[in-house]
């Protein structure tokens, strides 16, 4: 059972995320996956996660620009699967292009956040995200 699943293929971003999580000093469990296909397998219990039942995360932080399966494609898989279709997904992207934002919403994203590009700002942002998505938000799954 994890609170946050972060899909990010950029090692630096993942590292910075790790550091910020430590720094936040809050009891939030998280998993970082580096490809879209692994994320889909993780969430749907297929492939390398076939015999390891995983609980759904309370929040999926999804980078959009992934090598291989893109963020939008990951979302399409998740939204078309009965078990995972209501997972809260927040797109976490460097791009502020209107077309990217639009296609993310069309694929069913719950929120779109542009990466602030600064360490303290990212920390602040994550903290606000957790406040909302992990505490205030009510979800369909309680397992």
């Amino acid at each position, binding site marked *: 059972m994890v609170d946050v699943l972060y899909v990010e293929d950029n090692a630096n971003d993942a590292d910075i995320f790790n550091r910020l999580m430590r720094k936040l000093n809050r009891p939030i469990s998280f998993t970082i996956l580096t490809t879209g296909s692994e994320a889909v397998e993780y969430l749907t219990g297929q492939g390398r996660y076939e015999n390891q039942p995983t609980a759904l995360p309370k929040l999926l932080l999804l980078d959009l620009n992934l090598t291989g399966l893109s963020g939008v494609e990951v979302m399409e898989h998740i939204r078309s699967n009965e078990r995972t279709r209501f997972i809260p997904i927040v797109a976490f992207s460097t791009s*502020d292009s209107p077309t990217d934002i639009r296609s993310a919403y069309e694929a069913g994203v719950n929120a779109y956040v542009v990466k602030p590009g600064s360490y303290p700002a990212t920390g602040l942002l994550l903290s606000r995200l957790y406040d909302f998505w992990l505490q205030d938000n009510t979800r369909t799954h309680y397992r």
Partner: protein
Amino acid sequence: MTSLTVDLTNCEREPIHILGHIQSYGYLIAILPDTYTIVHVSENIADLFGHPPAELLGQSVETALTQTKLPAATLIEILNVGTRNGSWESMNPNRFLLNGTDWNLIIHKHQGLILLEWEPVGENNTLVNQQLIAHSLTEVQASRTLADLLQNTAQRVKTIIGFDRVMVYRFGADWHGQVIAEAREDHLEPFLGLHYPASDIPRQARELYKVNLVRLIANAGSQPACLLSAPNWPADQPLDLTHSVLRAVSPVHIQYLKNMGVQASMSISLLYRGELWGLISCHNYTPRFVDYPARQAARFVSQLLSAALEFRKDAEDQTALQQYRQNGQQLHQQLLLSEDVVQALTRQPTTVLNLTTGTGVALLFNNQLYKLGKTPSDADILALADWLKTTDAETFFETDQLPNLYAPAEAFRAEASGLLAIVLSKELNEYLFWFKPERIQQVTWAGNPEKPVIVTEDGQHRLSPRTSFAAWTETVRNTSESWAESEVSAVVKLREDVLQVVTRQANEIRLLNQRLQVAYEELDAFSYTVSHDLRTPLSSIRCYSEILLEEYGQDFTPDARALFQKIIDSTERMRSLIRHILHYSRMGRNDLNAQPVDMKQLLQGIREEIMVTAKDRSLRIDIGDVPPINADPTMVTQVFTNLLSNAAKYTRLKPEAVIRVQGEQTASDVIYSVEDNGIGFDMKQAGKMFDLFKRLENARSFEGSGVGLAIVKRIINRHQGKIWFHSEPDRGTTFSVTFPAVPTI
């Protein structure tokens, strides 16, 4: 002769082959082929045989000769030979000496009767005739133009028959005629080139001309001789004179000749492919008889000429076609060499005017009109193009009577009664027109049309060329010479050539467009790379600098800390630059989504945003009268966000900053102005204002990339609007932008 009311309509109705008269210089007897019993005689028969007609009708043909020294057996023998052979032509003429005078007997069989016609023997020399025929043959064989051939033939016929005037008269498609060759006595007025109305030679006369190739009227002034029939002969079966050599002509025609002062006339038919092509028409101003052998010689010349016409005319048509083809090829070459269709078709030695006999050409291409020769006015041609669009003409359009199809053309019928047009593009309104003038303009009148109608003493209107011309001009008004097959085919070929070039050019543009599309796509990909791939490492640089500062900062010297801060500030500046460039490039390409924009709401939103960042200073943003505009909401937001942020930025140092936004609706535009009381700038530097990355000197201490106003300018351009400004250093700046009331995007 009974007095006839002479007009053209009763002429059309006259049954001229059964008039019941012959010309009085000859004599006619018609006999039954089995018994040689006389059933018809001409009333003047007593002059020849000494027997009054009544004594001969119902008698054997031998009876006719009883008063002469000619033995009846001689005539009977000839009739027997003819009957036995079933042929009469080859024996004609049979020469007889009757009472000391020589006569030519011409026999033919028609409608169950044998017709015997006696006519005088002229002084004609058979040898001369044969020479002339031989010359004609040589003439026809020599390869000359049709015009030369006809002219020489006219001269030759004149020599054979010795008439004052010999004309070659050619029928048009509407059966009106024109004199195209002439041989005449020197003192006579030339008729060459004159036109005659179709009614001068009515339809039934033309039919006879096809059967009977040579006709002579020896004396228009003489009284014709009546034909009398045997008492028991049915009145409803008059003698058919179709092939008679003596047949009297219609009183209408006699009157016509008299009007022209002609006393004797002869006509020789010219046939082309079995149809009447023309006539050799001979006039003499005194009575003149042409004897049978001379007429036969003339007829032979006519047949030779008709045969020549068959291939010579084809050859001339072929020559015309060849000429048009050559010019067409030249035009094609010009089209291939020149990228410019207009140049190739209208401004080189060979132009589209050389492609037909039309006297004017107009090219409507690329919304421009180009004219050559005699044409209607620009407005008339444009209206004509509009009309043409409503017809079902898909490739070409051809008429020799435009005003009858398109009433407004009556106004310019002089230049364009005939129209040949090709459709280059209905959608783009591109056409090529060839015009032919109204034919009446080209016609030289046979006689003066102004001359009043002659009224005779008894009050009857005499037929004259004048009155018949009036009728003819009515029928040919609004028409031109028709377009030849060769002209139409040349023009249709040209259309293909032009379209090929146009299509090739269009393809080139399409290729360019495709390349542009590819370039845009690459630019998109590049923009994406800039937005993501460049920003990601930039973020890393910044974040790691911040981490270093945060986690190890206490170990750094103040100088090291300041250096790290510079790294962080630089990444921030670069990040902002990248964002602005992206915005700028997007503003050029995104589709415009024009719609009414509620400006009050939009401006208030921007004001709130700005006020958040300006909460620690004294800034007032007044929004005045703000009429709605029709524009892309996102882009308009960008425009006013940039203008208002700039105003806020450059008023930062003012103790009391005030920004005023106002709008005004005019007939054609909506004008907005954004006025501030900021630092202002020197108008001398204003040229740089909207250049990308250009910043003014006194703005150096203010943050900025030099992209914001370039974006504004770009958006306004895309909305077909305008932007301008007024400013003075330290006295503030006013930017004005307009949006068209009705956007033409």
